[in-house]
């Protein structure tokens, strides 16, 4: 504590940053983003940062009910219909798309299946050979936005007619474990998942073409009631960093910083691949990013912060 006070008092323009709370979502890319942001806020802006382990829904509920945590990062908007209401009520504001190109929602088949049966790379191939993918489509758990969309897509492609059973998972954990388990014993698997995630980083999967993206068709598919489900792939998912309006007016400088923290899919995939290869923690992955991509994050910082972190930027 004394050391913190000393550095704070000793530094040149001492910005009053104070306490910041930021979510750490329970998947790897989010943990890395949070770890990087935490370092920049603490070392560049003298904040005292508390990370709050959280999930999409819990984070948004918490913001709605208590106005905490201050910053929610890697929020997949498709998973939280309540977000629009909160934004309209002026409780929360979108700062940036933290994955600048958006996340990838899709249907996937493991690479090893495609190696043996190249025809499985298309929907037609899967519908003609349901046995090769285990007669089953692995769907999202109840309550996730993708469950509704997938069900409508399943109707449009007539999975049931082709002999494919749509299996709703009980939780995201079992969906991920099902992929891992199939991969370990090289069993058939076909289902929904999203990227960038450590699961898809670890287990190479091939994305199935669900047709060209058509906004009208997709909007119908995504709605709870859809009379005419059609074939349309998912649009790039909006993955954002949000901040409570309260915090934004209190700490405009930090909000400004967080509005720059953004990654392309290529960057994020590279970072996650490095993490996987080195069996590294999210904190070490953040360190890897901070030491190897200084030209990326130096543009995010304010003048003062850049000066404070100059030792790292040389």
């Amino acid at each position: 504590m004394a050391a913190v006070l000393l550095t704070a008092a000793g530094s040149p323009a001492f910005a009053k940053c104070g306490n910041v709370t930021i979510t750490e979502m329970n998947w790897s890319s989010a943990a890395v983003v949070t770890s990087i942001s935490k370092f920049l806020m603490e070392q560049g802006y003298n904040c005292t940062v508390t990370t709050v382990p959280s999930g999409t829904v819990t984070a948004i509920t918490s913001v709605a009910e208590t106005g905490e945590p201050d910053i929610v990062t890697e929020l997949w908007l498709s998973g939280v219909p309540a977000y629009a209401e909160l934004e309209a009520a002026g409780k929360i504001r979108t700062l940036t798309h933290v994955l600048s190109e958006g996340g990838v929602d899709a249907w996937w088949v493991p690479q090893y299946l495609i190696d043996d049966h190249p025809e499985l790379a298309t929907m037609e191939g899967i519908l003609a050979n349901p046995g090769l993918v285990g007669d089953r489509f692995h769907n999202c758990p109840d309550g996730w936005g993708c469950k509704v969309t997938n069900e409508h897509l399943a109707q449009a492609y007539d999975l049931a007619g082709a002999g494919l059973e749509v299996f709703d998972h009980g939780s995201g954990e079992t969906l991920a474990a099902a992929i891992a388990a199939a991969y370990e014993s090289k069993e058939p698997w076909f289902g929904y998942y999203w990227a960038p995630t450590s699961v898809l980083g670890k287990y190479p999967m091939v994305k199935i073409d669900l047709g060209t993206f058509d906004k009208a068709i997709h909007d119908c598919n995504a709605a709870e009631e859809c009379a005419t489900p059609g074939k349309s792939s998912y649009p790039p998912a909006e993955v954002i960093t949000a901040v409570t309006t309260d915090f934004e007016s209190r700490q405009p400088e930090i909000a400004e910083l967080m509005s720059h923290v953004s990654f392309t899919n290529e960057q994020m995939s590279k970072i996650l691949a490095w993490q996987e290869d080195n069996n590294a923690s999210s904190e070490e992955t953040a360190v890897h990013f901070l030491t190897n991509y200084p030209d990326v994050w130096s543009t995010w910082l304010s003048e003062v912060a850049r000066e404070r972190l100059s030792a790292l930027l040389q």
Partner: protein
Amino acid sequence: MALYSDFFDSMGLRDWCDAGTTGGPQTMADLLARTHSGEASEASQIVFPSLDVLHSACSVIPRTRDFTAGLEHYFLSVKDPVKSVLGPLTQPLSWALQGALDLVHDLPWWLLVLTLIVIVQLAAKRVRITVFTALVFAILAFIDHLEPALQTLAIILVCTFICVLVGVPIGIMMSRSSRLERLAIPVLDMLQTLPTFVYLIPLIFLFSVTEPKLYGIAIILYAIVPAIRLTNLGIRLVDKDVLEAADAFGMTARQKLIRVEFPLALPNIMAGVNQTIMMSLSMVVIASLVSAPGLGALVLRGINKLELGVGLVAGLGIVLLAIMLDRVSKAALERINKSHKA
């Protein structure tokens, strides 16, 4: 950390430590040291020699994550043999659960409810409880929760039946051998305290998520404990004088068990069965995380979608089922106890 480096140096182990190492990823501490160069850092502090700390001083020593990764590799390597043994062994559980769920799905609702009410009347022989049961079903049907409630009931009854079938004999064996009791009690403690997801996820690697036995095993492992414990306790609490009398009459061990110990221990065993029913009910929400149908799935949907009402109503449905199961089983047990005393 310098402390430990010096230690390895002074022991002359440096060559051994650095043999064939690549050096781990840079840690946050290293990075902070770079930003605050010149400031005294943790050199003055004594860091606990955890695996990670020792690794940074001597890179031959595995890090904690190498340790956990090793555990993972071990599990995956024994997975196939374990699967070939456990798979067929647990298959009847899948059939029983699937059969019970199909029954709920295929039979008309009125026949099922009527049958259950008749069973309650025959088991408890108390009109008040039978009326209460009918009322519970009526409420559940009124709020459109009858089918999930019956699914939950089917799962619980199958699991409880297996718990009794397996748990009571284990309890009897434990009461016979103090050695077995000493060995079994830590296992029972572990089953009740280990977070369920810890063994659910490895189970997914052994079986497929789509098999009902996955949640069946989860429920049984958790709910079987009171049946075992209270059977053991009940038999151990049987009056020694009574046993002496039985010995004096020249009863064999088997006769003693069936005609003296078991009847006298029955109140305790039945209390264990009642507890087993209640504990399997408390597992339904967790079982739904591995795709069990029923009221638990509705609770989860409510939580996932932030629909407080849906979650609350389904949760209340579980409470109603719990009260019903508790009253019915207690009344039935009382009757059995009385008939044995008479």
